[in-house]
């Protein structure tokens, strides 16, 4: 990339969201499951009052619940929507059960079929076959999944069609200005989601020199030429954990669970924690340095050295 092009990829959070995630977009996020959830982006979508999004993801923890409760979503394509720590997601339930704040469509998957849909799009094939979901009502009620006989063996198979979101949002430990990025810990469906999507926004804890990425190319999760925008935003995944940077802030999930059973409480929670702080800096300020510091790793655990010498 030319220097100009590189500089243009690095954007402030609000600008990246404004420019690349329009109303009506299908957005995949929460791709590493309970870790590396791009909560800062979700909160910015709420602040910018984005509407009619399709939310795509395996298990969303409370990220999807908040977006749904805030009225940002029209459709959910997922295997699980709730609060991993406490079960039910009240925002999601109210939308499905009572159409509040407005009705949403739900396309149910298992984790595996959601992953396969993204894989198919990433690989550029119209579908991938699997043996999961045979006999499940998820198959019976999801009209996009097809049951077919295998042309080789005659055995029944489920064909999962390609699922290509408009935009993927990934939170990672480090990226360079071109978007070459590296993450560690479980990565779930992150790589497939990025390759399946037209737009990729990478949010990183550390914006590093190009040489850091190139010192360890086996660690790269997504190459920069697939990345549209890079947002340098430490703590951008809070309250979800980022290995080597901060632990999960369980208290947030408990607090949200307790304060989301009634719709007015949930809206008050969003006002207090998303809208009123104004931006991510305001959110961190409200959390306070002491609380953040308490989430820091207790010790370093460095990876054993690896030598790429030649």
């Amino acid at each position: 990339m030319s220097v100009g092009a590189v500089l243009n990829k690095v954007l402030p959070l609000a600008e990246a969201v404004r420019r690349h995630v329009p109303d009506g977009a299908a957005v995949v996020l929460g791709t590493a499951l309970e870790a590396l959830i791009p909560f800062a982006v979700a909160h910015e979508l709420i602040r910018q009052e984005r509407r009619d999004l399709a939310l795509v993801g395996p298990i969303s923890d409370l990220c999807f619940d908040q977006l749904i409760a805030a009225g940002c979503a029209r459709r959910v394509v997922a295997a699980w929507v709730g609060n991993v720590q406490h079960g039910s997601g009240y925002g999601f339930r109210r939308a499905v059960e009572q159409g509040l704040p407005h009705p949403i469509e739900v396309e149910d998957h298992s984790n595996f079929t959601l992953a396969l849909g993204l894989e198919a799009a990433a690989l550029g094939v119209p579908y991938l076959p699997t043996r999961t979901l045979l006999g499940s009502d998820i198959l019976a009620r999801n009209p996009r999944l097809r049951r077919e006989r295998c042309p080789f063996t005659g055995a029944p198979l489920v064909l999962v069609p390609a699922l290509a979101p408009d935009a993927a949002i990934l939170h990672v430990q480090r990226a360079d200005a071109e978007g070459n990025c590296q993450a560690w810990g479980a990565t779930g469906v992150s790589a497939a989601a990025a390759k399946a999507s037209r737009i990729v926004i990478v949010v990183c804890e550390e914006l590093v020199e190009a040489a850091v990425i190139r010192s360890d190319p086996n660690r790269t999760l997504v190459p920069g030429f697939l990345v549209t925008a890079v947002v340098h935003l430490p703590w951008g995944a809070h309250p979800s954990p980022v290995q080597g940077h901060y632990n999960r802030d369980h208290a947030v999930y408990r607090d949200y669970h307790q304060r989301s059973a009634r719709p007015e409480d949930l809206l008050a929670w969003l006002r207090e924690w998303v809208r009123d702080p104004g931006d991510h800096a305001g959110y961190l300020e409200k959390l306070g340095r002491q609380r953040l510091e308490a989430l820091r790793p207790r010790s370093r655990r460095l990876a054993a050295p690896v030598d790429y010498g030649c």
Partner: protein
Amino acid sequence: MAVDYTPGELMVAVAAREIRDGEVVFVGMRLPLLAFCLARATHAPNAVGLFENGIVRDSPALAFLVTMSDGPNVAGALWCTEMREIMGLLQSGRVDLGFLGGAQIDRFGNLNTSYVGPPGRQTRLPGSGGGADIAGLSRRHVVIMAHERRRFVERVDYVTSPGFGEGGDWRRRVGLPGGGPAAVITTLGLFRFDPETREMVLASTHPGVTVEEVREETGWPLACAPSVTVTPPPTGEELAVVRRFDPDGFWTRDRG
């Protein structure tokens, strides 16, 4: 020697006994995670644990976990990878045992974690996650859940994670490769499945629970093993290990 324990601790101990040494176990979270830690610390030191986020461990997590993606489950893992790798191991028959929870279960071990209640007035539950995949693809699976009459129904409202479907050779007919449920561990007892009809059968009641109480909390005429035994309670050693991994009783005391 009588030892004091919670229903959660008992269920963890019973679940741990389902894990054989050297097995590859699809662990999941909550009670199964504790059961895996307990089994490894006692009779199954060579069991390997898989998590759908992409983690493979052969040692217990470094500290208490609320979710499988918490830092202490990543650090010291032997493999951190993508979900597709874990699901590939499952689909290719490499997973001996998977654990599942559920909101509603029926006579043939089918689980519902999606929609409960009559059409039009349904309660929306979180959904499958990896549950349907574990139920369909692991060589055998074990269900852990609270035993209440509203949860133990003749036929689930929605089959999220298939058990034995309509019974008999249903799994073979629909093409599911995995072996189906091997056990259901509830707050009241331990259940197996009839090898022919594939109907759930009461194998043992937990200490202090009568067969009649189990029947009352079950929404169909419950079949019982020829001799229903009493579930051996957790030993002191088992309890010590469980409490080491759930020091504040987050999973085994606060909830069932």
